């Protein structure tokens, strides 16, 4: 069903293509765009998120500088319409919303009052796909890599850890957010729709995922610690189980256990995860007291 709705939106987007919705700085100024960025940066989307229209209030807050410029001389009725238009349901990811704000501003600037459905259609068409990109690249991959580099230093008690993590994550995050507003405005909707752009985005996601998975493998080896303390007495000689396992492959148990937990997620809903943590703490403690784990 969603596919069909998407197709309707896609068609509307294609119709808009003919009108060349690119920002031209005719009415909107660069300082308006800067203001939009700062509002997104300071107020975000989640502060005012509700269950029905989700992040709509946050979006309206961020795009207000553009509306103020475009509707400076408009009558109350038009302004009410403009505000209500941007209070329609919106749900995306913070970083990626920079670009949606830029493109929406460009379309607001270039459309007449009776073409405003285009604004709603473009917003609705972009928020899902861009949220997907935002989540997979920023929230998951870059955050995980920055976090694990930081944690490597922090676990040794080195203050460089949090500083490195903060710099890596925020430099990329803030640059994309700000650049998104400007580029979205200047290049318009074609920026997203052209096949080239989609290919570049796909490439970024692919590289981010590959790097993420390789680093993940390294993290399992470095940070999951499971050592067996049991020793088997065979005649006079004592065989340590851990040594036996290490001869097969070092860190074999951490790898197997992590993969086991990963497979467990297929059958166990994510909301029980916190009980999984308690469970591991409890069973791990019992095994450690019994001397099976060291």
């Amino acid at each position, binding site marked *: 069903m969603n*596919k069909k709705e998407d197709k309707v939106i896609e068609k509307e987007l294609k119709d808009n293509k003919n009108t060349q919705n690119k920002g031209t700085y005719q009415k909107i100024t660069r300082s308006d765009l800067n203001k939009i960025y700062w509002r997104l*940066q*300071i*107020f*975000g*989307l*989640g*502060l*005012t998120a*509700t269950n*029905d*229209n989700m992040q*709509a209030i946050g979006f*309206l*807050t961020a795009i207000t500088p553009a509306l103020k410029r475009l509707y400076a001389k408009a009558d*109350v009725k038009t*302004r009410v319409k403009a*505000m*209500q238009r941007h209070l329609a349901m919106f749900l995306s990811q913070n970083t990626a919303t920079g670009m949606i704000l830029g493109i929406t501003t460009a379309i607001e600037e270039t459309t007449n009052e009776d073409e405003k459905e285009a604004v709603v259609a473009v917003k609705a068409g972009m928020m899902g796909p861009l949220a997907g990109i935002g*989540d997979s690249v920023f929230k*998951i991959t870059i955050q995980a890599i920055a976090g*694990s*580099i930081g944690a*490597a*230093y*922090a676990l040794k*008690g080195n203050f460089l*850890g*949090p500083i490195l*993590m*903060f710099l890596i994550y925020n430099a990329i995050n*803030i640059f994309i957010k700000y650049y998104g507003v400007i580029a979205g405005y200047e290049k318009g909707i074609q920026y997203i729709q052209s096949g080239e752009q989609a290919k570049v985005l796909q490439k970024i996601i*692919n*590289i981010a*995922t*590959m*790097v993420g*998975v*390789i*680093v*993940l*493998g390294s*993290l*399992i080896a*470095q*940070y*999951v610690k499971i050592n067996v303390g049991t020793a088997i007495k065979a005649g006079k000689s004592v065989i340590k189980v851990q040594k036996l396992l290490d001869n097969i492959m070092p860190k074999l148990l951490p790898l197997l256990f*992590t993969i086991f937990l*990963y497979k467990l*997620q297929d059958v166990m809903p*994510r909301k029980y*995860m916190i009980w999984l943590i308690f469970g*591991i*703490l*409890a069973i*791990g*403690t019992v*095994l*450690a007291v019994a001397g099976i*784990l060291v």
Partner: protein
Amino acid sequence: MSFMQALLIALWAGYCSYDDEGPQMLRRPLLVGPLVGLILGDMKTALIVSGTLELMWMGLGNMAGYQTPDMIVGTIVGVSVSITSGTGATPQGIAAGVAAATTVAVLVQQLLLFARFVRQLFEPWADKIALTGNFDGIMKINIVAVIFQFLLRAIPTFLVVFFQKGVVDKILAVIPKNILSGLGVAASILPAVGLAILMTMMMKPSLWPFLILGFVLSTYLKLGVLPVTLIALSFSVIYMFLMEIMDTQKEQQTIKSNTGQSDNNNSSDEDDEEYDL
């Protein structure tokens, strides 16, 4: 812990709470925890506990439709417990911190569900402001929202941090030493949980060789995260280049064999739609 320290920690919790929904620059245990160590005067413990929590909760925080355990108050309380219980950066101290952090994170999770309910009130308010046509009016909601978000975590953090000391000390005094050290061993398994969650978000069947590559780089070659990341980055870029070359070669072949078969393409599109339904 003095009143002043508890107050400073509560203010930090309030700021982090605002940051979590607004600028989104901190959010993670490793960025939230160290400042608590600075306030309480034990940086090393704060760094180690925050680092452990960071790994444990690695994939957490982006699950649609369900409120995740709260990492912010969890981290702040966990670090405070580790430092003030006098155990410091020992395995037992870290384990006590991790256990406290997890417990508090679950409790605060319930509080955040209540916060969603309160935020719902912003919606009729916003509709009312929209009817006035006053663009600046929407700012009022944001200011109220920032204050609400600040207090939402500042107040519970103050209460827990200020009153936890006696309670946690008593609990730790009762628990036998070998159980505490066992808890320390168990806590070192926990990063597996965060990494497994992360795997559910990134893994595809074709990516297993990549996972093994990273694993081998660190087990046998003993490389740290930074060198592994750099190797992974160059490896992935090279891999993408190779795939591109292969794709263009394939495209050229299919163009040669598929010329004049556009009708077939149309019918296959219709098939796709049926599958979607």
